[in-house]
Every structure is written in C-alpha cells, then in structure tokens.
C-alpha cells in the first residue's frame, strides 16, 4: 500500500463527503449569484459612457453648447444641454441636481459642491475654443487658418518608474490573484484546520493512524480540500469571466499566458504551504471550537505575509527587500507572483523561489506529521506545540493514568 494511493483515498473522501453537504452546495450557488450580480451591477452603475446635464444661462455664444457636446464626446461623456431664463432658475436646477453644472454668461461655472473635474475640463475647453473662435472672427482671421493653428498636438505619456514591457493587465491580474489566494487560504485552510480538529475530537483518528502514517492523512486532506476549493474557484472565475464579457468586453485585463501560468503555480503552492501549517496546528486543539485559537499564529503570519508582500513589492519591486521577500516561502506566493507580473523578476528567481517553497512544503509535511501523531493521540486540554513535538518522551494522560470516567464510558461519539 503506497502513500500516494492512501493520500488519494483520503483526498477522494474529503471531496465526496464535503461536496455532499448542503452547506457546501448552497455556498457555491450563493457565491456564483453574488459574483455575477456584483459584476453586472457594477457595470450598470459605472458605465464608461456617462451622461451629464449642463445648464446654460445669460449670454451664451450660439456655438458653445455644440462645442461642449463635441468636447464631451472626445472624453466619452455625453452632454445634454439645458437652457434657463435666469441665473436663479439655473441655480435652482443645480441645487435640485437636474444639471451637474450651470454655465453663466460663458464665464462662470456654478456647481452644487465640489466641481466634477472631468466635466469642468470639458466645459472649460469648450468655452476657450468658442471664445478664441469669436475673437479670431472679430480680428478677421480666416476660420480655416484658425483650425490649422488650433489643431491639437498628439501628446504621449511616459511613466519613468514603469519599465518597458510591464503591463497593467498583468499587474491587475496578480493583485486579484493575491487577494483570491489570501481568501482561498482563509476559507480552505480553515476547512483543513477544522477537519483535523474534528477527526481528533471524534477519535476516528486512531483508527486512521493505525492504517496509515499521519503525513499521508494530512497530505491527502490538504489535497482533497484544495482540489475542491480550486474547482469552486474555477467555476466562480468562469462565471465571472462570462458575466464580465457580457456586460463590458473591454474591461477584462489582458494577461499574458506566462504570467497566468505563474499565477496558477503560486496559487497552488501558497495554498499548500499554509493549509499544511493549519493542519499541523489543528491537531493541537482538543475540540473543534478551540481550533481557531490554536491556529491564530498561522493566521497572523498569513496576514503579515500578505500585506508585507503587497507593500514591499508595490513600493519598489527591484529592491533587496522585495527580492528577499519573494524568495522566502511564507511570502513568496504573494511577493514573487507580484514581481513576475510587474516584470521585475529575472527568469531564475521564480525557479529558486518555487524550489524553496516546495522544499518548505515537504519539510512541513514531515514536521506536521510528527506534531500530528504526537498531538492527535493526546486528549484533554489543548496541547502546546513543544509538547506535541516531544510527545514521544512525555506521558499523555491516556498513556499514564486513564481517567476512570472515560474508561467506563467506553464509547464516545462527538459530532
């Protein structure tokens, strides 16, 4: 009986039993509905093509409303002009939010509160244009000549701190992936945690450990819950993609295939390393309710790793700190994927980081297996990590003096 087969049997049991639960199924449906709804609603609220009402009053050049509409078109804002007989009526409309801004005598803009910068630029540019045209006509300049003089010069934007080839789509994908990984670890890492604690509290673990080493049990559990989690994420991501394509095709960030592959690799490794740690500490809890307390250190490390990676890499992806943090196994899944997306990592850096992380996971499997075996046969109060580690040299209460009540009870079922 090899370990891989046993691990697979454990994984398959996790997938079967958990996918059978009504809570799990309802969770999938609710997540799908929420994600699709969020995308559709967000698209409805924030469409690229906004409509703004602009009020005019007083002496308004005949060409001005048309010029505002033209300027608006260029900026993806459709402008609806409205006319008011008096300043008071116009201001009333601004107050009632019937118009976003009131143009008085083509000289003054009246806003309800803070000016809308985008709209201000549109209206101001239109006023400048119309006024210059008026003055030119008054000075006898030929309108055709004027057009040539006023023709816009194409202006290019250059950002010094973004290197060539660094695509914003890749960065966006990584930021999303980091957040999703963080969420996945919290969700599925906690399933591993409570799963381990439940096996301990229901005492089924002794039946299992008599049949296989703890490392097979733990690795199978992490793999099974992981596969289930990835399936759920994949379904949700697919639904989100379809919804996004349906409402706003241009809104999907363009991700290169290489970056996407790395994102998946880091997602898997990031989940594996933290889930394994959760499994090991889960075995220290004596009851499922204690599991969260026992796991607090792992949760703190996770939170710190996520935010530290984000801040260090975002501030300067090429700094020594960024390089170190992207090689360290606890932070690599967040930091290295970020640096890959920005294009800051040399080809060999992720390779080393993957090797280190895989080695750390392998070490954690062995370490977790030992803590697990030491802790899992211990009943009574929550165990300290050091005690579980040295369980071979310390008496558990069971081994030394079994309490009489437990002996007579004989059968204990905890659910």
């Amino acid at each position, binding site marked *: 009986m090899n370990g891989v087969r046993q691990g697979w049997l454990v994984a398959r049991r996790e997938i079967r039993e958990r996918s059978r639960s009504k809570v799990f199924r309802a969770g999938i449906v609710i997540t799908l509905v929420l994600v699709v709804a969020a995308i559709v609603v967000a698209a409805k609220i924030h469409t690229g093509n906004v409509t703004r009402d602009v009020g005019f009053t007083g002496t308004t050049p005949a060409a001005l409303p048309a010029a505002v509409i033209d300027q608006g078109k260029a900026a993806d804002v459709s402008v609806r002009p409205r006319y008011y007989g008096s300043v008071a009526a116009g201001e009333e409309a601004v107050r009632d939010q019937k118009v976003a801004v009131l143009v008085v005598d083509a000289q003054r803009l009246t806003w309800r509160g803070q000016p809308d910068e985008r709209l201000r630029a549109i209206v101001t540019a239109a006023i400048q244009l119309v006024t210059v045209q008026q003055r030119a006509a008054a000075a006898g300049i030929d309108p055709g000549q004027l057009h040539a003089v006023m023709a816009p010069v194409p202006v290019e934007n250059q950002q010094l701190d973004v290197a060539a080839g660094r695509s914003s789509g890749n960065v966006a994908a990584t930021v999303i992936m980091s957040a999703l990984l963080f969420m996945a670890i919290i969700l599925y890492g906690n399933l591993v945690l409570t799963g381990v604690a439940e096996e301990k509290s229901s005492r089924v673990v*002794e039946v299992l450990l008599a049949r296989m080493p703890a490392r097979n049990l733990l690795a199978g559990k992490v793999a099974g819950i992981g596969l289930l989690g990835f399936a759920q994420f994949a379904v949700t991501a697919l639904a989100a993609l379809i919804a996004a394509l349906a409402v706003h095709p241009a809104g999907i960030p363009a991700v290169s295939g290489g970056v996407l592959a790395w994102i998946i690799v880091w997602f898997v490794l990031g989940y594996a390393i933290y889930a394994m740690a959760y499994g090991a500490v889960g075995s220290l809890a004596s009851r499922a309710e204690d599991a969260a307390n026992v796991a607090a250190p792992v949760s703190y490390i996770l939170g710190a790793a996520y935010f530290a990676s984000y801040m260090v890499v975002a501030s300067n992806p090429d700094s020594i700190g960024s390089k170190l943090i992207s090689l360290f196994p606890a932070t690599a899944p967040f930091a290295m994927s970020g640096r890959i997306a920005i294009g800051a990592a040399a080809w060999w850096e992720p390779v080393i980081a993957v090797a280190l992380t895989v080695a750390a996971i392998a070490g954690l499997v062995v370490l977790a297996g030992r803590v697990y075996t030491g802790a899992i046969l211990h009943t009574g109060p929550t165990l300290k990590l050091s005690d579980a580690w040295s369980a071979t040299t310390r008496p558990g209460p069971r081994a*030394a003096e079994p309490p009489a009540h437990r002996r007579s009870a004989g059968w204990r079922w905890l659910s």
Partner: protein
Amino acid sequence: MLDFDGTTKRFGSLTALDRCTFAARPGRLTGFLGPNGAGKTTAMRAVFGLVELDAGAVRWQGRPVTAAERTRFGYMPEERGLYPRMRVRDQLVYLGQLCGHAAGDVGRSVDGWLERLGLAARAADRLDALSHGNQQRVQLIAALVGEPDLLVLDEPFAGLDPIAMDATSGLLTELAFGGATVLFSSHQLDLVEDLCEDVVIIDHGRIVLAGELAELRAKVPQRFVDIRYQGQAPDWSQLDPAELVEDRDGQARLRVGHNTDVVALLGTLRDRAEVVSFAYQPPTLSELFRQAVAA
C-alpha cells in the same frame, strides 16, 4: 503469531512498558489483563506503530511489524470513534481501502459483515443516525473488514449489554477458530476465563503472568474446595491443612495445598457438616489475577 519481545516504552519518568515479552498465538483468543494504567493500551498501540518504542520490538510471524503487515491487522481502539456524519457503508469501505484492499473485495466483505450483524438495512444511513448499540457494531466491523489475520481489540466488551456481549464473544471465538490471532483487553475476568485459552497479565508495565490459562492455573500450588452444606455452620478450625477463605449462606471456600488428600478431606468435612456438594479445583482467573497483581 504476534510477539512482544522486550518491548519497552518510557514517557519521561514513567515506564509504561518495561521489557514486556509475551505472544499471542494464531487460532486462539488471548486475554490481555491488567489494572487501569498498567500499560495495556500502550502495548496495543505499539502493534500499530502509534507509539515509538524505546527498546524491544513487536514481531508478526517472526518479522518486525511494518506498514505492509498492518494491512492484515484489525484494530479497535479503546476510545471508539468514526466519522459521525459519514454513511455507514461508505465509511467501512473507505477504512478497508486504506488497508490496501481493492474496492470490490472490501465492498463484499463490508456487505457480509453488515448482513451478519443485522445492519444491512442501515448501510446507507449516517452513522450518527444509528443507536448506540448499532454504532458499536459498526466499530467492530471497522476492525473486521478485509478479514484480518490479527485482531487487536482494546476492551471490546466495555459498555455492551449482555446480549451484545454474547454475540461478540461468539464472533471472536469463531474468528479464532478460523485461524485468526485475537488479542483483546478486558476487565471482565469471568468472561475472559470462559473465552480465552491464553492470558497475559500486565502490571505497572511489567508482564507478571503469561501463558495458557489451564497451565497457569495448574501450576499454582493452591487448590480450592467449594462446598455447600445444610444446617449449622461447622467449626472450621483444626481443619489443617485446609484454610477457610470464606463462609456465607451455606457456601464455603477453603484453600488447600495441591497435594491434599481430597477424599480424606471430604470425610472430615462430612463429619462436621451435612455436605450437599463438593468441588475441588484450581484457582479462578480472578484469584490468579489478584495474586499476580498484588505480588
């Protein structure tokens, strides 16, 4: 044959198993006895590698036990437990498959045992939907799936009602008759005396008595005479070499040496009381146990 050879396990200053050497033979039931905390559970866990030994070894068919051998072992831990929310049959098939058996074989074995223990109709139910007694049956099947060559059962009779106790005894006897090696611990000495050919008594981590029960009883120099009598209680003094153990409600138990002239003793007794019945026998397992543990 399962051999414990100098098996030693220390937990800090406490020695849970102290150079324990004994064997459980195939085709026989071996009762594993000892006061609470004597080391029975630790010894049984050692068979399954659940405790790391400090010295000695546990051997199966003369070879140290490895994971491969354990696939042919069945184990029922003292603290029972299965997945409460998992369906009975799925659960048993899963546990069988973990031992390396093919799904089809395990399925047939599980179905056979469910049928045999009257649980066939509950196969698709969640474990926690079953009554206490039925849950115990499922736990027993978990140890029997795959028809193991060695059964190690930690207090299989604890918490059973008399009918379940009879059924379990019958089952274990049958399995041993079929060639299995069966080692089980118990505090019910009368039951062990009825069931087991071999006993092992452990105290403070040391094996204080081990071997064939009939031989162990015969080897002890004391014998006991049980008599029932009618009328007045006789004067038990000057009955040398017999010594009174107890006398209550017309029943008396006397301790004598193993070479006592039984016929002469019966004559002496009849002179003093109206003897209704007379029995001459070696000590019971309880007496052996108390002696061994007190020593």
